Protein backbone atom coordinates (compact mmCIF):
# COMPACT_ATOMS: atom_id res chain seq x y z
CA UNK A 1 0.00 0.00 0.00
CA UNK A 2 1.23 3.44 -0.91
CA UNK A 3 1.58 6.08 1.80
CA UNK A 4 -0.87 8.31 -0.06
CA UNK A 5 -3.05 8.30 -3.12
CA UNK A 6 -1.91 10.14 -6.25
CA UNK A 7 -3.11 13.69 -6.66
CA UNK A 8 -2.15 16.55 -8.96
CA UNK A 9 -2.21 18.98 -6.04
CA UNK A 10 1.32 19.86 -4.93
CA UNK A 11 2.69 20.52 -1.46
CA UNK A 12 2.10 17.21 0.30
CA UNK A 13 5.67 16.83 1.53
CA UNK A 14 6.02 20.49 2.46
CA UNK A 15 2.76 20.86 4.42
CA UNK A 16 2.81 17.47 6.13
CA UNK A 17 6.51 17.78 6.94
CA UNK A 18 6.05 21.26 8.39
CA UNK A 19 2.97 20.27 10.42
CA UNK A 20 4.67 17.21 11.88
CA UNK A 21 7.86 19.09 12.74
CA UNK A 22 5.87 21.89 14.36
CA UNK A 23 3.75 19.47 16.40
CA UNK A 24 6.80 17.46 17.47
CA UNK A 25 8.77 20.50 18.62
CA UNK A 26 5.90 22.35 20.25
CA UNK A 27 3.61 19.58 21.56
CA UNK A 28 5.06 16.06 21.51
CA UNK A 29 8.57 16.62 22.86
CA UNK A 30 7.44 18.95 25.67
CA UNK A 31 4.58 16.61 26.67
CA UNK A 32 6.83 13.56 26.62
CA UNK A 33 9.06 15.34 29.15
CA UNK A 34 6.22 14.98 31.63
CA UNK A 35 6.29 11.20 31.27
CA UNK A 36 10.09 11.04 31.16
CA UNK A 37 10.22 12.93 34.46
CA UNK A 38 7.68 10.55 35.98
CA UNK A 39 9.64 7.47 34.92
CA UNK A 40 12.71 8.83 36.68
CA UNK A 41 10.79 8.67 39.98
CA UNK A 42 10.56 5.42 41.92
CA UNK A 43 7.12 3.83 42.04
CA UNK A 44 6.80 4.38 45.82
CA UNK A 45 7.73 8.06 45.49
CA UNK A 46 5.18 8.47 42.74
CA UNK A 47 2.46 6.66 44.67
CA UNK A 48 3.13 8.59 47.88
CA UNK A 49 2.86 11.88 46.01
CA UNK A 50 -0.32 11.16 44.11
CA UNK A 51 -2.09 9.47 47.03
CA UNK A 52 -1.13 11.89 49.83
CA UNK A 53 -4.08 13.28 51.82
CA UNK A 54 -3.71 16.78 50.34
CA UNK A 55 -3.63 15.36 46.80
CA UNK A 56 -6.65 13.13 47.45
CA UNK A 57 -8.59 16.09 48.85
CA UNK A 58 -7.73 18.11 45.74
CA UNK A 59 -8.89 15.33 43.38
CA UNK A 60 -12.15 14.99 45.28
CA UNK A 61 -12.83 18.69 44.96
CA UNK A 62 -11.71 18.88 41.32
CA UNK A 63 -13.78 15.88 40.22
CA UNK A 64 -16.77 16.64 42.44
CA UNK A 65 -17.02 20.30 41.45
CA UNK A 66 -16.34 19.55 37.77
CA UNK A 67 -19.07 16.91 37.82
CA UNK A 68 -21.51 19.26 39.56
CA UNK A 69 -20.71 22.10 37.16
CA UNK A 70 -21.09 19.88 34.09
CA UNK A 71 -24.40 18.53 35.46
CA UNK A 72 -25.79 22.05 36.00
CA UNK A 73 -24.71 22.85 32.45
CA UNK A 74 -26.35 19.70 31.09
CA UNK A 75 -29.72 20.83 32.51
CA UNK A 76 -29.53 24.56 31.81
CA UNK A 77 -27.44 24.17 28.65
CA UNK A 78 -30.12 21.92 27.16
CA UNK A 79 -32.75 24.51 28.09
CA UNK A 80 -30.73 27.39 26.61
CA UNK A 81 -29.97 25.45 23.40
CA UNK A 82 -33.65 24.49 23.08
CA UNK A 83 -34.85 28.05 23.55
CA UNK A 84 -32.25 29.43 21.12
CA UNK A 85 -33.12 26.97 18.34
CA UNK A 86 -36.90 26.63 18.73
CA UNK A 87 -38.09 29.95 20.07
CA UNK A 88 -38.12 33.26 18.25
CA UNK A 89 -37.75 36.22 20.57
CA UNK A 90 -36.40 39.73 20.47
CA UNK A 91 -32.62 39.81 21.04
CA UNK A 92 -32.11 36.14 20.19
CA UNK A 93 -28.94 36.84 18.18
CA UNK A 94 -27.50 38.84 21.06
CA UNK A 95 -28.21 36.04 23.54
CA UNK A 96 -26.73 33.53 21.11
CA UNK A 97 -23.52 35.56 20.85
CA UNK A 98 -23.33 35.94 24.65
CA UNK A 99 -23.27 32.15 25.11
CA UNK A 100 -19.68 32.20 23.83
CA UNK A 101 -18.59 34.73 26.45
CA UNK A 102 -16.87 32.10 28.64
CA UNK A 103 -14.73 31.14 25.60
CA UNK A 104 -13.79 34.73 24.86
CA UNK A 105 -13.41 36.22 28.34
CA UNK A 106 -9.93 35.63 29.81
CA UNK A 107 -10.23 33.23 32.74
CA UNK A 108 -8.55 35.60 35.20
CA UNK A 109 -11.16 38.27 34.41
CA UNK A 110 -13.95 35.73 34.86
CA UNK A 111 -12.37 34.70 38.17
CA UNK A 112 -12.22 38.17 39.74
CA UNK A 113 -15.66 39.10 38.34
CA UNK A 114 -17.34 35.99 39.78
CA UNK A 115 -15.60 36.58 43.11
CA UNK A 116 -16.87 40.17 43.18
CA UNK A 117 -20.42 39.04 42.32
CA UNK A 118 -20.61 36.20 44.85
CA UNK A 119 -18.58 37.56 47.81
CA UNK A 120 -20.62 38.43 50.90
CA UNK A 121 -21.06 42.09 49.84
CA UNK A 122 -21.32 41.34 46.11
CA UNK A 123 -24.32 41.88 43.83
CA UNK A 124 -25.64 38.33 44.29
CA UNK A 125 -23.66 37.24 47.36
CA UNK A 126 -25.38 39.84 49.59
CA UNK A 127 -28.76 38.21 48.93
CA UNK A 128 -27.43 34.70 49.56
CA UNK A 129 -25.58 35.60 52.77
CA UNK A 130 -28.76 36.10 54.91
CA UNK A 131 -29.99 32.72 53.67
CA UNK A 132 -26.85 31.15 55.11
CA UNK A 133 -25.41 30.38 51.65
CA UNK A 134 -21.77 31.30 51.24
CA UNK A 135 -20.44 30.97 47.70
CA UNK A 136 -17.08 32.75 47.47
CA UNK A 137 -14.18 30.96 49.20
CA UNK A 138 -16.16 27.69 49.55
CA UNK A 139 -16.46 24.60 47.31
CA UNK A 140 -19.73 26.12 46.04
CA UNK A 141 -17.68 28.96 44.55
CA UNK A 142 -15.55 26.42 42.68
CA UNK A 143 -18.75 24.92 41.23
CA UNK A 144 -19.97 28.37 40.15
CA UNK A 145 -16.69 29.09 38.32
CA UNK A 146 -16.65 25.68 36.63
CA UNK A 147 -20.29 26.10 35.57
CA UNK A 148 -19.40 29.44 33.99
CA UNK A 149 -16.55 28.08 31.87
CA UNK A 150 -18.37 24.89 30.79
CA UNK A 151 -21.66 26.40 29.55
CA UNK A 152 -20.76 26.96 25.85
CA UNK A 153 -19.61 23.35 25.41
CA UNK A 154 -23.08 21.94 26.16
CA UNK A 155 -25.04 24.61 24.26
CA UNK A 156 -22.84 24.51 21.13
CA UNK A 157 -22.84 20.69 21.01
CA UNK A 158 -26.64 20.50 21.33
CA UNK A 159 -27.71 23.35 18.99
CA UNK A 160 -26.94 21.61 15.64
CA UNK A 161 -28.51 18.36 16.86
CA UNK A 162 -31.74 20.12 17.92
CA UNK A 163 -31.80 21.88 14.53
CA UNK A 164 -31.48 18.52 12.74
CA UNK A 165 -34.27 16.80 14.69
CA UNK A 166 -36.77 15.21 12.34
CA UNK A 167 -39.98 17.29 12.43
CA UNK A 168 -42.13 14.44 11.15
CA UNK A 169 -41.44 12.21 14.14
CA UNK A 170 -42.59 14.91 16.54
CA UNK A 171 -45.66 15.64 14.43
CA UNK A 172 -46.47 11.92 14.26
CA UNK A 173 -46.23 11.65 18.05
CA UNK A 174 -48.55 14.66 18.43
CA UNK A 175 -51.01 13.28 15.88
CA UNK A 176 -51.10 9.96 17.75
CA UNK A 177 -52.20 11.84 20.84
CA UNK A 178 -48.98 12.22 22.83
CA UNK A 179 -48.80 15.32 25.02
CA UNK A 180 -45.95 17.72 24.42
CA UNK A 181 -44.21 16.42 27.54
CA UNK A 182 -44.57 12.77 26.47
CA UNK A 183 -43.20 13.68 23.03
CA UNK A 184 -40.21 15.35 24.65
CA UNK A 185 -39.40 12.52 27.07
CA UNK A 186 -40.02 9.60 24.72
CA UNK A 187 -39.20 10.99 21.27
CA UNK A 188 -36.99 14.07 21.45
CA UNK A 189 -34.82 13.38 24.48
CA UNK A 190 -33.46 9.96 23.36
CA UNK A 191 -32.31 11.62 20.13
CA UNK A 192 -30.49 14.34 22.05
CA UNK A 193 -28.87 12.03 24.60
CA UNK A 194 -25.59 11.28 22.75
CA UNK A 195 -24.99 14.99 22.09
CA UNK A 196 -25.95 15.86 25.66
CA UNK A 197 -23.44 13.33 26.98
CA UNK A 198 -20.77 14.65 24.61
CA UNK A 199 -21.37 18.23 25.75
CA UNK A 200 -21.35 17.11 29.37
CA UNK A 201 -18.02 15.30 28.92
CA UNK A 202 -16.44 18.25 27.11
CA UNK A 203 -17.53 20.62 29.89
CA UNK A 204 -16.32 18.12 32.49
CA UNK A 205 -12.92 17.70 30.79
CA UNK A 206 -12.45 21.46 30.49
CA UNK A 207 -13.40 21.93 34.16
CA UNK A 208 -10.85 19.34 35.36
CA UNK A 209 -7.92 21.40 34.10
CA UNK A 210 -9.37 24.87 34.76
CA UNK A 211 -7.21 27.19 36.81
CA UNK A 212 -7.69 30.93 36.18
CA UNK A 213 -11.36 31.33 36.96
CA UNK A 214 -11.19 29.12 40.06
CA UNK A 215 -8.16 30.42 41.97
CA UNK A 216 -9.77 33.73 42.81
CA UNK A 217 -13.16 32.49 43.99
CA UNK A 218 -11.98 29.32 45.77
CA UNK A 219 -9.87 30.90 48.51
CA UNK A 220 -7.26 28.15 48.01
CA UNK A 221 -7.35 26.56 51.47
CA UNK A 222 -5.37 23.27 51.42
CA UNK A 223 -7.61 20.22 52.06
CA UNK A 224 -10.75 22.39 51.66
CA UNK A 225 -10.85 24.50 48.51
CA UNK A 226 -7.61 23.58 46.74
CA UNK A 227 -8.12 22.19 43.21
CA UNK A 228 -5.61 19.80 41.60
CA UNK A 229 -4.17 22.33 39.08
CA UNK A 230 -3.53 24.71 42.00
CA UNK A 231 -1.73 21.94 43.91
CA UNK A 232 0.56 21.52 40.86
CA UNK A 233 1.21 25.27 40.98
CA UNK A 234 1.94 25.20 44.74
CA UNK A 235 4.39 22.31 44.35
CA UNK A 236 6.15 24.18 41.53
CA UNK A 237 6.51 27.27 43.70
CA UNK A 238 8.12 25.04 46.36
CA UNK A 239 10.52 23.75 43.63
CA UNK A 240 9.03 20.25 44.13
CA UNK A 241 9.21 19.47 40.40
CA UNK A 242 8.79 15.71 40.88
CA UNK A 243 5.64 16.17 42.97
CA UNK A 244 4.17 18.64 40.48
CA UNK A 245 4.91 16.25 37.60
CA UNK A 246 3.36 13.24 39.35
CA UNK A 247 0.06 15.05 39.98
CA UNK A 248 0.12 16.52 36.46
CA UNK A 249 0.51 13.05 34.92
CA UNK A 250 -2.41 11.73 36.98
CA UNK A 251 -4.64 14.64 35.90
CA UNK A 252 -3.53 14.33 32.27
CA UNK A 253 -4.26 10.60 32.08
CA UNK A 254 -7.79 11.19 33.35
CA UNK A 255 -8.29 13.93 30.72
CA UNK A 256 -7.06 11.59 27.97
CA UNK A 257 -9.45 8.85 29.16
CA UNK A 258 -12.30 11.39 28.98
CA UNK A 259 -11.28 12.44 25.47
CA UNK A 260 -11.36 8.81 24.39
CA UNK A 261 -14.83 8.50 25.93
CA UNK A 262 -16.00 11.57 23.99
CA UNK A 263 -14.70 10.10 20.74
CA UNK A 264 -16.53 6.83 21.43
CA UNK A 265 -19.71 8.81 22.17
CA UNK A 266 -19.44 10.73 18.92
CA UNK A 267 -18.97 7.49 17.03
CA UNK A 268 -22.05 6.09 18.80
CA UNK A 269 -24.10 9.19 18.03
CA UNK A 270 -23.09 9.15 14.33
CA UNK A 271 -24.11 5.52 14.15
CA UNK A 272 -27.44 6.03 15.90
CA UNK A 273 -28.24 9.00 13.65
CA UNK A 274 -27.31 7.03 10.53
CA UNK A 275 -29.76 4.22 11.32
Amino acid at each position, binding site marked *: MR*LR*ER*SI*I*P*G*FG*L*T*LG*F*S*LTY*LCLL*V*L*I*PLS*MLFARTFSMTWTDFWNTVSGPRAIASYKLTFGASFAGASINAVFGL*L*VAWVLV*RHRFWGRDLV*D*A*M*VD*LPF*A*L*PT*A*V*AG*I*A*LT*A*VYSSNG*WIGRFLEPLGVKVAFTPLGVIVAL*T*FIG*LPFVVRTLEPVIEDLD*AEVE*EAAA*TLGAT*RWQTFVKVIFPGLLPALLTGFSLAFARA*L*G*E*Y*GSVVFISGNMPMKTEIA*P*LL*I*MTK*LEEYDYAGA*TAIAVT*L*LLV*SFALLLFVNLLQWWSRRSRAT
Partner: protein
Amino acid sequence: MTPSGQTSSAEQTRLEPPAVRFVLLGVALTFLGLFLVVPLAVVFAQAFSKGIHVYWAAIVDPDARHAICLTLVTALVSVPMNVVFGIAAAWAITKFEFRGKNILITLIDLPFTVSPVISGLIFVLLFGAQGAFGPWLSAHDIKIIFAVPGIILATTFITAPFVARELIPLMQSQGSEEEEAALSLGANGWQTFWRVTIPNIKWGLLYGVILCNARAMGEFGAVSVVSGHVRGRTNTMPLHVEILYNDYNFAGAFAVASLLAMLALATLALKKIVEWRVRQTLAEAERMASQGKIPA
Protein backbone atom coordinates in the same frame (compact mmCIF):
# COMPACT_ATOMS: atom_id res chain seq x y z
CA MET B 1 -56.71 23.77 3.98
CA THR B 2 -54.07 25.81 2.17
CA PRO B 3 -50.48 24.54 2.12
CA SER B 4 -49.33 27.49 4.25
CA GLY B 5 -52.07 26.70 6.77
CA GLN B 6 -50.79 23.14 6.93
CA THR B 7 -47.21 24.11 7.66
CA SER B 8 -48.25 26.51 10.38
CA SER B 9 -50.39 23.89 12.09
CA ALA B 10 -47.53 21.38 11.69
CA GLU B 11 -45.18 23.90 13.26
CA GLN B 12 -47.68 24.40 16.06
CA THR B 13 -47.26 20.76 17.11
CA ARG B 14 -43.50 21.35 17.47
CA LEU B 15 -43.99 24.25 19.85
CA GLU B 16 -44.84 24.19 23.52
CA PRO B 17 -48.02 25.93 24.76
CA PRO B 18 -47.44 29.72 25.15
CA ALA B 19 -47.36 29.57 28.97
CA VAL B 20 -44.71 26.82 28.96
CA ARG B 21 -42.72 28.65 26.32
CA PHE B 22 -42.76 31.78 28.46
CA VAL B 23 -41.49 29.88 31.52
CA LEU B 24 -38.74 28.09 29.55
CA LEU B 25 -37.56 31.35 28.04
CA GLY B 26 -37.69 33.05 31.43
CA VAL B 27 -35.64 30.36 33.18
CA ALA B 28 -33.06 30.22 30.35
CA LEU B 29 -32.61 33.99 30.28
CA THR B 30 -32.42 34.22 34.09
CA PHE B 31 -29.72 31.55 34.13
CA LEU B 32 -27.71 33.34 31.42
CA GLY B 33 -28.27 36.66 33.17
CA LEU B 34 -26.94 35.40 36.51
CA PHE B 35 -23.98 33.51 35.05
CA LEU B 36 -22.93 35.66 32.08
CA VAL B 37 -24.37 39.18 32.15
CA VAL B 38 -23.94 39.96 35.85
CA PRO B 39 -20.21 39.02 35.98
CA LEU B 40 -19.57 41.01 32.79
CA ALA B 41 -21.41 44.04 34.15
CA VAL B 42 -19.58 43.84 37.47
CA VAL B 43 -16.20 44.16 35.69
CA PHE B 44 -17.15 47.59 34.32
CA ALA B 45 -18.97 48.69 37.49
CA GLN B 46 -15.94 47.87 39.66
CA ALA B 47 -13.51 49.40 37.16
CA PHE B 48 -15.26 52.78 37.37
CA SER B 49 -16.20 52.48 41.07
CA LYS B 50 -13.50 54.97 42.13
CA GLY B 51 -14.10 57.31 39.21
CA ILE B 52 -12.65 57.84 35.77
CA HIS B 53 -9.36 59.23 37.13
CA VAL B 54 -8.48 56.08 39.06
CA TYR B 55 -9.47 54.04 35.99
CA TRP B 56 -7.25 56.09 33.70
CA ALA B 57 -4.35 56.07 36.16
CA ALA B 58 -4.48 52.26 36.40
CA ILE B 59 -4.26 51.94 32.62
CA VAL B 60 -1.48 54.45 31.95
CA ASP B 61 0.58 53.15 34.89
CA PRO B 62 4.04 52.10 33.52
CA ASP B 63 3.64 48.49 34.73
CA ALA B 64 0.21 48.27 33.11
CA ARG B 65 1.51 49.77 29.85
CA HIS B 66 4.33 47.25 29.87
CA ALA B 67 1.87 44.42 30.46
CA ILE B 68 -0.27 45.62 27.53
CA CYS B 69 2.82 45.74 25.27
CA LEU B 70 3.95 42.26 26.32
CA THR B 71 0.48 40.85 25.68
CA LEU B 72 0.46 42.42 22.19
CA VAL B 73 3.95 41.12 21.40
CA THR B 74 3.02 37.62 22.57
CA ALA B 75 -0.08 37.56 20.37
CA LEU B 76 1.84 39.08 17.43
CA VAL B 77 4.36 36.23 17.54
CA SER B 78 2.23 33.23 18.46
CA VAL B 79 -0.84 33.94 16.29
CA PRO B 80 1.09 34.17 12.94
CA MET B 81 3.03 30.99 13.80
CA ASN B 82 -0.22 29.14 14.42
CA VAL B 83 -1.75 30.60 11.24
CA VAL B 84 1.08 29.14 9.14
CA PHE B 85 0.80 25.84 11.02
CA GLY B 86 -2.99 25.80 10.71
CA ILE B 87 -2.94 26.39 6.95
CA ALA B 88 -0.20 23.78 6.40
CA ALA B 89 -1.95 21.17 8.54
CA ALA B 90 -5.36 21.82 6.95
CA TRP B 91 -3.82 21.62 3.44
CA ALA B 92 -2.13 18.28 4.19
CA ILE B 93 -5.25 16.84 5.83
CA THR B 94 -7.91 18.01 3.39
CA LYS B 95 -6.12 17.80 0.03
CA PHE B 96 -4.52 14.36 0.41
CA GLU B 97 -5.38 10.87 1.58
CA PHE B 98 -2.67 9.30 3.68
CA ARG B 99 -2.25 6.78 6.44
CA GLY B 100 -2.31 8.06 10.00
CA LYS B 101 -4.45 11.08 9.17
CA ASN B 102 -6.71 10.53 12.18
CA ILE B 103 -3.71 10.36 14.49
CA LEU B 104 -2.54 13.71 13.09
CA ILE B 105 -5.97 15.27 13.75
CA THR B 106 -5.93 13.95 17.33
CA LEU B 107 -2.42 15.36 17.82
CA ILE B 108 -3.57 18.79 16.65
CA ASP B 109 -6.37 18.75 19.25
CA LEU B 110 -4.07 17.61 22.04
CA PRO B 111 -3.32 21.05 23.56
CA PHE B 112 -7.06 21.54 24.19
CA THR B 113 -7.14 18.58 26.56
CA VAL B 114 -4.09 19.63 28.54
CA SER B 115 -4.71 21.76 31.63
CA PRO B 116 -3.18 25.26 31.24
CA VAL B 117 -1.06 24.69 34.35
CA ILE B 118 0.35 21.48 32.84
CA SER B 119 1.01 23.34 29.56
CA GLY B 120 3.24 25.71 31.50
CA LEU B 121 4.80 22.93 33.55
CA ILE B 122 6.07 20.99 30.51
CA PHE B 123 8.10 24.01 29.36
CA VAL B 124 9.52 24.45 32.86
CA LEU B 125 10.57 20.77 32.73
CA LEU B 126 12.27 21.40 29.38
CA PHE B 127 13.90 24.78 29.85
CA GLY B 128 13.77 25.52 33.61
CA ALA B 129 16.87 25.57 35.85
CA GLN B 130 16.29 21.90 36.78
CA GLY B 131 14.99 21.04 33.31
CA ALA B 132 16.42 18.93 30.51
CA PHE B 133 18.09 21.85 28.72
CA GLY B 134 18.46 23.96 31.88
CA PRO B 135 22.22 23.55 32.45
CA TRP B 136 23.04 24.10 28.77
CA LEU B 137 20.86 27.22 28.62
CA SER B 138 22.35 28.75 31.75
CA ALA B 139 25.88 27.98 30.47
CA HIS B 140 25.05 29.96 27.33
CA ASP B 141 23.25 32.67 29.30
CA ILE B 142 19.90 32.15 27.54
CA LYS B 143 16.77 32.67 29.59
CA ILE B 144 13.52 31.06 28.45
CA ILE B 145 11.63 30.33 31.65
CA PHE B 146 10.76 33.40 33.74
CA ALA B 147 11.35 35.41 30.57
CA VAL B 148 9.48 36.47 27.41
CA PRO B 149 10.40 33.40 25.23
CA GLY B 150 8.75 31.08 27.77
CA ILE B 151 5.56 33.16 27.74
CA ILE B 152 5.45 33.06 23.93
CA LEU B 153 6.14 29.29 23.85
CA ALA B 154 3.42 28.45 26.37
CA THR B 155 0.92 30.72 24.59
CA THR B 156 1.75 29.19 21.20
CA PHE B 157 1.24 25.70 22.65
CA ILE B 158 -2.16 26.60 24.14
CA THR B 159 -3.44 28.30 20.96
CA ALA B 160 -1.98 25.86 18.38
CA PRO B 161 -5.25 24.05 17.48
CA PHE B 162 -7.50 27.09 16.85
CA VAL B 163 -6.74 27.95 13.18
CA ALA B 164 -6.33 24.33 12.03
CA ARG B 165 -9.60 23.37 13.70
CA GLU B 166 -11.58 26.07 11.86
CA LEU B 167 -9.93 25.41 8.49
CA ILE B 168 -10.13 21.60 8.34
CA PRO B 169 -13.95 21.26 8.20
CA LEU B 170 -14.26 24.30 5.90
CA MET B 171 -11.67 23.06 3.39
CA GLN B 172 -13.10 19.55 3.58
CA SER B 173 -16.55 20.81 2.59
CA GLN B 174 -15.14 22.93 -0.24
CA GLY B 175 -13.25 20.03 -1.80
CA SER B 176 -10.29 20.32 -4.19
CA GLU B 177 -12.03 20.76 -7.55
CA GLU B 178 -11.23 24.46 -7.90
CA GLU B 179 -7.53 23.90 -7.13
CA GLU B 180 -7.40 21.00 -9.57
CA ALA B 181 -9.00 23.16 -12.27
CA ALA B 182 -6.47 25.96 -11.69
CA LEU B 183 -3.56 23.51 -11.80
CA SER B 184 -4.73 21.82 -14.98
CA LEU B 185 -5.06 25.28 -16.59
CA GLY B 186 -1.35 25.80 -15.93
CA ALA B 187 -1.18 27.70 -12.62
CA ASN B 188 1.66 26.65 -10.35
CA GLY B 189 1.18 25.55 -6.73
CA TRP B 190 1.74 28.95 -5.12
CA GLN B 191 -0.46 30.77 -7.63
CA THR B 192 -3.23 28.25 -6.95
CA PHE B 193 -2.84 28.68 -3.21
CA TRP B 194 -2.88 32.50 -3.24
CA ARG B 195 -5.50 33.06 -5.96
CA VAL B 196 -7.87 30.12 -5.41
CA THR B 197 -7.52 28.66 -1.93
CA ILE B 198 -6.95 31.83 0.12
CA PRO B 199 -9.99 33.70 -1.31
CA ASN B 200 -12.09 30.60 -0.61
CA ILE B 201 -10.99 30.18 3.00
CA LYS B 202 -10.46 33.82 4.02
CA TRP B 203 -13.51 34.08 6.31
CA GLY B 204 -12.85 30.77 8.02
CA LEU B 205 -9.23 31.78 8.42
CA LEU B 206 -10.22 35.11 9.95
CA TYR B 207 -12.57 33.27 12.33
CA GLY B 208 -9.71 31.03 13.48
CA VAL B 209 -7.40 34.03 13.89
CA ILE B 210 -9.97 35.85 16.04
CA LEU B 211 -10.41 32.88 18.39
CA CYS B 212 -6.67 32.21 18.49
CA ASN B 213 -5.92 35.85 19.28
CA ALA B 214 -8.53 36.07 22.05
CA ARG B 215 -7.05 33.05 23.78
CA ALA B 216 -3.45 34.20 23.22
CA MET B 217 -4.13 37.58 24.84
CA GLY B 218 -6.18 36.15 27.68
CA GLU B 219 -4.21 33.04 28.63
CA PHE B 220 -3.52 32.97 32.34
CA GLY B 221 -2.67 29.55 33.81
CA ALA B 222 0.11 28.49 31.43
CA VAL B 223 1.66 31.95 31.32
CA SER B 224 1.46 32.21 35.09
CA VAL B 225 3.64 29.09 35.47
CA VAL B 226 6.41 30.21 33.09
CA SER B 227 6.47 33.96 33.72
CA GLY B 228 7.85 34.21 37.24
CA HIS B 229 5.67 37.32 37.80
CA VAL B 230 8.38 39.95 37.45
CA ARG B 231 6.45 43.21 37.58
CA GLY B 232 7.15 45.46 34.60
CA ARG B 233 9.15 42.71 32.89
CA THR B 234 7.36 39.39 32.46
CA ASN B 235 3.78 40.34 33.28
CA THR B 236 1.08 40.02 30.66
CA MET B 237 -2.28 41.75 31.13
CA PRO B 238 -4.01 38.81 32.88
CA LEU B 239 -1.03 38.44 35.24
CA HIS B 240 -1.07 42.16 35.93
CA VAL B 241 -4.76 41.87 36.84
CA GLU B 242 -3.86 39.13 39.34
CA ILE B 243 -1.07 41.16 40.94
CA LEU B 244 -3.24 44.26 41.37
CA TYR B 245 -6.06 42.11 42.75
CA ASN B 246 -3.79 40.41 45.28
CA ASP B 247 -2.54 43.87 46.33
CA TYR B 248 -6.20 44.74 47.14
CA ASN B 249 -6.09 47.36 44.38
CA PHE B 250 -9.52 46.22 43.16
CA ALA B 251 -10.38 49.29 41.08
CA GLY B 252 -7.03 48.99 39.28
CA ALA B 253 -7.39 45.24 38.74
CA PHE B 254 -10.88 45.69 37.28
CA ALA B 255 -9.72 48.62 35.14
CA VAL B 256 -7.13 46.43 33.38
CA ALA B 257 -9.65 43.56 33.38
CA SER B 258 -12.18 45.82 31.62
CA LEU B 259 -9.75 46.20 28.70
CA LEU B 260 -9.65 42.40 28.41
CA ALA B 261 -13.45 42.27 28.72
CA MET B 262 -13.76 44.75 25.84
CA LEU B 263 -11.44 42.52 23.81
CA ALA B 264 -13.78 39.61 24.59
CA LEU B 265 -16.85 41.60 23.49
CA ALA B 266 -15.11 42.68 20.27
CA THR B 267 -14.20 39.02 19.69
CA LEU B 268 -17.82 37.95 20.10
CA ALA B 269 -19.07 40.65 17.72
CA LEU B 270 -16.46 39.82 15.07
CA LYS B 271 -17.17 36.13 15.51
CA LYS B 272 -20.87 36.68 14.83
CA ILE B 273 -20.12 38.67 11.65
CA VAL B 274 -17.61 36.16 10.35
CA GLU B 275 -19.88 33.20 11.18
CA TRP B 276 -22.52 34.79 8.99
CA ARG B 277 -20.03 35.26 6.14
CA VAL B 278 -18.80 31.65 6.43
CA ARG B 279 -22.38 30.40 6.19
CA GLN B 280 -22.88 32.56 3.08
CA THR B 281 -19.69 31.21 1.47
CA LEU B 282 -20.75 27.63 2.18
CA ALA B 283 -24.27 28.21 0.85
CA GLU B 284 -22.79 29.71 -2.31
CA ALA B 285 -20.46 26.74 -2.78
CA GLU B 286 -23.41 24.37 -2.39
CA ARG B 287 -25.52 26.36 -4.84
CA MET B 288 -22.72 26.38 -7.42
CA ALA B 289 -22.22 22.66 -6.98
CA SER B 290 -25.92 21.91 -7.36
CA GLN B 291 -26.09 24.01 -10.54
CA GLY B 292 -23.29 21.89 -11.92
CA LYS B 293 -20.90 24.79 -12.45
CA ILE B 294 -18.10 22.75 -10.93
CA PRO B 295 -17.54 19.36 -12.56
CA ALA B 296 -17.74 16.77 -9.80
